């Protein structure tokens, strides 16, 4: 006998597929472009600082007008690590949200307020650094004490990003309310995960700023708990790198397939990998503090284990990418074991730049495994190996993917076309970047393995044989860094060309769809309360004991030191 399914019973999968695409309004385009302007100006300034650094470290160049090496190092780190990334990411994510779930007028106004707060904070911090009152690099280094304006500026950047996060959450929530039985658009889902992670992670740096640095730098508190400030910073500092990486993954999962003429490999898998990144990006910061005193080695080891859990979503991502490439190629009729590689649009910069980014993540990720490997970390900690590592992950994987996005996003926003000549320039840019980075990053890795320190101006260290050997690699870094700077100048030229000089038209905003016969996405993927709860439980597990220990067994606090950074 047949039984009819009860109509009231909810299916455990979402029925809808794919994403309805909206049109970005004029005001939305202007908002995103504002972020892009800040990002590309930052790229130029930060790149120029990078060039000066490699030149100084070659030993053949001295900074003019008494400019301090550590001022340009601070500018380089802050403007590229915090400003370029955060502004590009929030701008890009706002474009994705506008394209998939849309903005109300009020939401858009709040998004503008977020942008304004971020920009004001950024300008305050930038001026403080440029006048030499904040040579504290971007990890702050208490008890070195910068001018209070530096800390206040950084805090405003974070607060502005929070306003944006809440706008994104609200947009998502309103969309879900209007579409109760539909799954959220994949890209909007990913943006919400990334902003959730950012919000939870920045609580650490905000606490350090509001409770420790700002009152201390204003003189309301005499001393600071140095280890607590470092632990709070790294609670934020590691998820920060995933905050850079996840927008690149958004493009890999949901935009690149469209560019190569394919479909999303698996909607569920993409969502699941983002959920895993949310879980395992935060409770891991101690792996940056492995050689520090005052932290128990057992908890260091526990956080090392948690760190390695991101291997799983990383492997899932790698599989998805190459599966998409192969499936798309085979559908187009390219056979053989590797014949499908041929179909890939190698001469399309929107694909080539992110693809090289993907390749860079193979050695980049492997190097990261070395860094996080508990006792092996001692071999490379604070050597320039680490600098080589994140110039592969952040400055190649993430940045080349962001460039790959910019080639279509900027013309889309400005109502112009990506022309053949810009595409060609983009390919030259990508190749220059790759060559420059290979030379610089490889020489940094080798110099680090033989002990060369990071974050250091040129020194012959009393003329030891080791220091002489390091000098040769620093010369190679100067060559690579110079090529990279040429690539940056070219990128800025391309940026200007795409805004003002390319022919008018409508450039596609590529968003990939699922296969028609794709498996439906299960409802559990949007069990937000559970995802947030697991994230918080993991953080509490990993951090409660170490932080209690740092507070309860604290040494006498540290008085401020401003003279070592020339701020007295």
């Amino acid at each position, binding site marked *: 006998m047949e039984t009819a399914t009860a109509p009231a019973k909810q299916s455990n999968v979402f029925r809808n597929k794919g994403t309805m695409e909206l049109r970005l309004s004029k005001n939305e385009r202007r908002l995103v472009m504002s972020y892009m302007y800040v990002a590309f100006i930052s790229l130029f300034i930060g790149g120029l600082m990078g060039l000066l650094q490699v030149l100084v470290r070659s030993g053949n160049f001295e900074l003019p007008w008494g400019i301090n090496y550590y001022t340009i190092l601070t500018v380089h780190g802050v403007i590229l690590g915090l400003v370029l990334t955060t502004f590009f990411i929030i701008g890009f994510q706002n474009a994705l949200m506008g394209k998939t779930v849309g903005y109300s007028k009020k939401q858009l106004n709040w998004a503008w307020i977020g942008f304004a707060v971020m920009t004001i904070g950024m300008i305050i911090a930038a001026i403080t650094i440029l006048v030499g009152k904040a040579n504290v690099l971007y*990890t702050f280094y208490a008890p070195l004490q910068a001018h209070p304006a530096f800390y206040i500026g950084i805090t405003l950047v974070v607060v502005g990003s929070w306003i944006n996060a809440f706008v994104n959450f609200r947009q998502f929530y309103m969309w879900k309310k209007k579409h109760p039985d539909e799954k959220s658009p994949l890209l909007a889902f990913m943006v919400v995960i990334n902003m959730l992670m950012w919000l939870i992670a920045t609580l650490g740096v905000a606490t350090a700023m509001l409770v420790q640095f700002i009152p201390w730098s204003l003189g309301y508190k005499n001393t600071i708990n140095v280890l607590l400030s470092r632990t709070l910073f790294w609670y934020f500092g590691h998820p920060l790198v995933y905050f850079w990486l996840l927008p690149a993954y958004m493009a890999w999962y949901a935009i690149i397939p469209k560019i190569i003429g394919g479909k999303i490999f698996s909607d569920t898998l993409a969502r699941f990998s983002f959920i895993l990144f949310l879980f395992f990006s935060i409770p891991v910061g101690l792996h940056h503090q492995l050689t520090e*005193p*005052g932290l128990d080695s057992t908890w260091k080891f526990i956080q090392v284990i948690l760190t390695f859990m991101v291997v*799983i979503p990383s492997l899932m991502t790698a599989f998805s990418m190459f599966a998409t490439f192969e499936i798309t190629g085979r559908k187009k009729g390219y056979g053989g074991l590797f014949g499908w590689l041929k179909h890939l649009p190698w001469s399309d910069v929107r694909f080539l730049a992110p693809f090289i980014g993907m390749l860079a993540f193979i050695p980049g990720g492997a190097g990261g495994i070395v860094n996080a490997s508990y006792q092996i970390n001692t071999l490379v900690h604070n050597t320039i190996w680490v600098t080589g590592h994140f110039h592969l992950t952040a400055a190649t994987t993430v940045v080349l993917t962001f460039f790959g996005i910019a080639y279509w996003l900027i013309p889309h926003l400005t109502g112009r076309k990506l022309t053949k000549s810009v595409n060609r320039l983009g390919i030259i840019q990508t190749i220059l970047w790759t060559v420059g980075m290979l030379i610089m990053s490889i020489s940094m890795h080798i110099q680090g393995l033989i002990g060369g320190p990071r974050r250091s101006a040129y020194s012959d260290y009393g003329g030891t044989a080791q220091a002489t050997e390091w000098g040769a690699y620093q010369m190679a870094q100067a060559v690579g860094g110079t090529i990279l700077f040429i690539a940056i100048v070219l990128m800025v030229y391309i940026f200007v060309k795409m805004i003002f000089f390319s022919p008018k038209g409508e450039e596609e905003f590529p968003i990939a769809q699922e296969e028609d016969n794709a498996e439906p996405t299960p409802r559990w993927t949007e069990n937000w309360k559970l995802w947030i709860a697991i994230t918080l439980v993991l953080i509490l597990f990993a951090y409660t004991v170490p932080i209690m220990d740092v507070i309860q067994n604290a040494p006498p606090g540290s008085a401020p*030191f401003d003279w070592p950074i020339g701020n007295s």
Partner: protein
Amino acid sequence: MHLHKYEKYWLGLGIIGLIAFLLILGFGAFYLGTHPQSHGELIDPENLEMNEAFHEENLGLTKVDEGRYVLNVVASAFNYNLGTDESGAPISHIEIPAGSKVLVQATSPDVVHGLNFAGTNINMMVEPGYVSALEVQLDNPGEYTLVCNEYCGVGHHMMFGTMEVVE
């Protein structure tokens, strides 16, 4: 959630590799006892003398037994204090016979420093309020540069010394 057959193999191999890798790290750490520097001893950065190791006369390299040494270092902006020689001049070069075990103890009266004998396993953070300590065996003869590898201010790159491991 449906996983492709190859993806199951791929993830399965990856996870097995991950577990094996973590077991090796754990074996090295908890069975062989190779940990990164994690000493937790407290000290008042404004009164380093409270710890005997950092009395002026105890700084630098001291032989405590056959093949065993202690190296006490005060790292400050921008100098490593390795004690003084007979004439009272500051020491910046030390010599240790190959095969010796040396316990390095370091602290800071001011800001955060690094202490790395480049090319050896002596690499640790030095923070005000804590004594950092690490024991290593030095088997390979050669000259090793002592460098501050954690940013401490505008003279950061001027902090250095040398250690000769002699046959």
